[in-house]
């Protein structure tokens, strides 16, 4: 592992006890993701891709094995340390957007800066800039419910970038969107990957989507890594390309 390694897992396991049965959500996965990579985690429902993403995000702790993200062994971090990792180390987008419905887009985008205790005077400007970047400057005073799915996902992207993390974790980011809107979102994610040099790990069950945008595809089944293949020439490489 060197400084250009964004994510390193070694025999990573996450097992759950459900009644009498032991569920091996992540079962001995070892992999490395270099900084600036765009990786797609593929697999059917229950294959463990979201569980792996949660471990990398620091939302969950491994049962055994190592998960080192940007040089930090997450298994050894305290709850406070994990919170700091989520705050500064990663940005997350979800299938269901996960914006707070009672807050305007501006307030939603500002929220991680509140946790990071960024100066109040700077916050509004940064949030506005971030929302402008995703093309929502006209919607900053709207609440999530007043927006389309695509707009909500763009807002959640703006929020994920607000504390300038090096790693973007996307869990089915287009799962709730039609194909045209999904493509817009994917283009934005690719732009962050290319222009900002962010490492992107995207969970999806759509192989076609992964082939269009990701530079590397990792296939999971039953919590195990079954295939790890590079995708040298993503087919949707051109800007504005459809799915």
């Amino acid at each position, binding site marked *: 592992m060197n400084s250009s390694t964004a994510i390193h897992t070694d025999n990573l396991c996450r097992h759950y006890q459900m009644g009498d049965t032991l569920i091996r959500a992540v079962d001995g996965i070892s992999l490395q993701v270099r900084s600036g990579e765009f990786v797609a985690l593929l697999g059917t429902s229950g294959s463990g891709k979201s569980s792996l993403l949660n471990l990398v995000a620091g939302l969950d702790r491994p049962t055994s094995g190592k998960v080192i993200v940007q040089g930090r062994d997450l298994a050894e971090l305290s709850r*406070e340390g994990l*919170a700091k990792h989520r*705050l500064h180390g990663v940005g997350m987008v979800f299938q269901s957007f996960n914006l707070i419905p009672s807050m305007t887009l501006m307030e939603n985008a500002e929220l991680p800066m509140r946790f990071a205790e960024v100066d109040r005077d700077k916050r509004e400007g940064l949030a506005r800039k971030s929302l402008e970047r995703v093309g929502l400057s006209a919607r900053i005073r709207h609440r999530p419910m007043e927006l389309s799915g695509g707009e909500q996902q763009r807002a959640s992207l703006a929020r994920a970038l607000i504390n300038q993390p090096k790693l973007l974790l996307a869990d089915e980011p287009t799962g709730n969107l039609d194909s045209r809107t999904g493509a817009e979102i994917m283009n934005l994610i690719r732009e962050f990957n290319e222009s900002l040099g962010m490492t992107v790990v995207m969970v999806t069950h759509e192989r076609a989507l992964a082939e269009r945008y990701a530079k590397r595809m990792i296939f999971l089944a039953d919590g195990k890594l079954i295939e790890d293949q590079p995708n040298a020439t993503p087919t949707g490489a051109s800007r504005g390309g459809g799915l």
Partner: protein
Amino acid sequence: MTLYDSTELALRNLRESLLRNSLTTIGISVGVASLVAMLSLGIGLQQLAGRRLQKSGLFDTVVVSSRRDLRSYNREQEENGPAPAESPVLDESARQKISQLPHVLEAYPDIRFITQLQFEDKPHLSMVSGLPPSARSNDAFDGMQGSFFSAESAAEAILQKSFAEELLGKTPKAGGDDVNVATLARPLLGKKLVMQYAERTASTAQSGGGDNSAAYSVVSHQLNLTIVGIADLDPDSMRGPTRARVFIPLGLAESLHVMQPNDLRDTTRSAGASAAYTTVSVRLKSPKDIPVIEDAVKKMGFNTFSIIDATKSLQQFFAVLDIFLGIFGSLALAVASIGIVNTLVMAILERRREIGIMKALGASDRDVKGLFFAEAGAMGIIGGLVGVALGWTIGHAINLGTNVYLRRLHFPPEQIWSVPWWLVIGAIVFSVIVSLVSGLYPASRAARLDPVQALRYE
């Protein structure tokens, strides 16, 4: 997250579930209100009792009487000390001795006699009492119309309000509106009052006895007094001198040698000896000196009386009353605190997903805990403020109601309710503390929430 941000988010969250949070806050308000209303009444009653006692002027006074006076104030004292017949006479030399004791401001005799006073040719009967110059600063003479005596032996009189009413032929109606002292004073100040009195003078007549034979004459005199003041004194006050309705300067009263009630009991005593007093009032620098002086005076062979014991037991009574009122008041707040716990636990269930989102975005356990704490605290502050206002209103209403009732029973109105600053601040602080303690469990529960589980929650 900073406290400011926590508070801001907390207030926003409280606004989101306005009805439920308002009901919880009203619960706290009612709790605080009952606490404030109960304690304000307790404090008000205590102050009322204190005021009454203060007005009596007996807080810093020891009344000394001779053991020879068998109607002594305190029968218990007769069991100790010299037998009455062997005890010293309370005369001028005894008074001087007492006045030289440490911590004593002054010791003055209580000279009182019932006599006839003539005003505009109409006779009136009243108790007349001598007032020492120090009485000028007595609370009892607050709001007096006219002026105090111009000199120690001036032929001047201060009238008690009811006597002034009698002189003017205005019989006070029971329960009717109080007549203003100023309106009474206007026609009376500067007018003449003719006092008749009986002077006791040593008689030169020899009655065949020895040298110690006591012979004296009682001579009737008249004295013109000028009315200089009308005072709104309470005729039922505990203080001896104020039971009188006409006051003259003590120096004048002494110089008149008016026949005193105890002269009749002391008929065998030599008239040539200096005057014996019924009682001597001893004013002290501070009420805390009362026990010392009482001891010293008792050693001299006199009886003493002070109300220090009465005030002690009174203070104890009010301390107990306040505790009970406080406990009853707090019960409502305890019930309200359960409401806070319930509301916040409900909020956790409702906002599970939101908590998950915040944690995914990087909120620490402390941030989440702080947020719920701030919500509990905000409900506590708002509930405290509204509660104090409500308690104030309730106390005020009880006071008004009581006064209406008192007036119907023909008693003067009284302030039985008092909200001191410390109660206002204390109640708000107490409300916040209770709310924060109630928020402890919900806040730590919210902080412990597993973000993965919480995000899965729909």
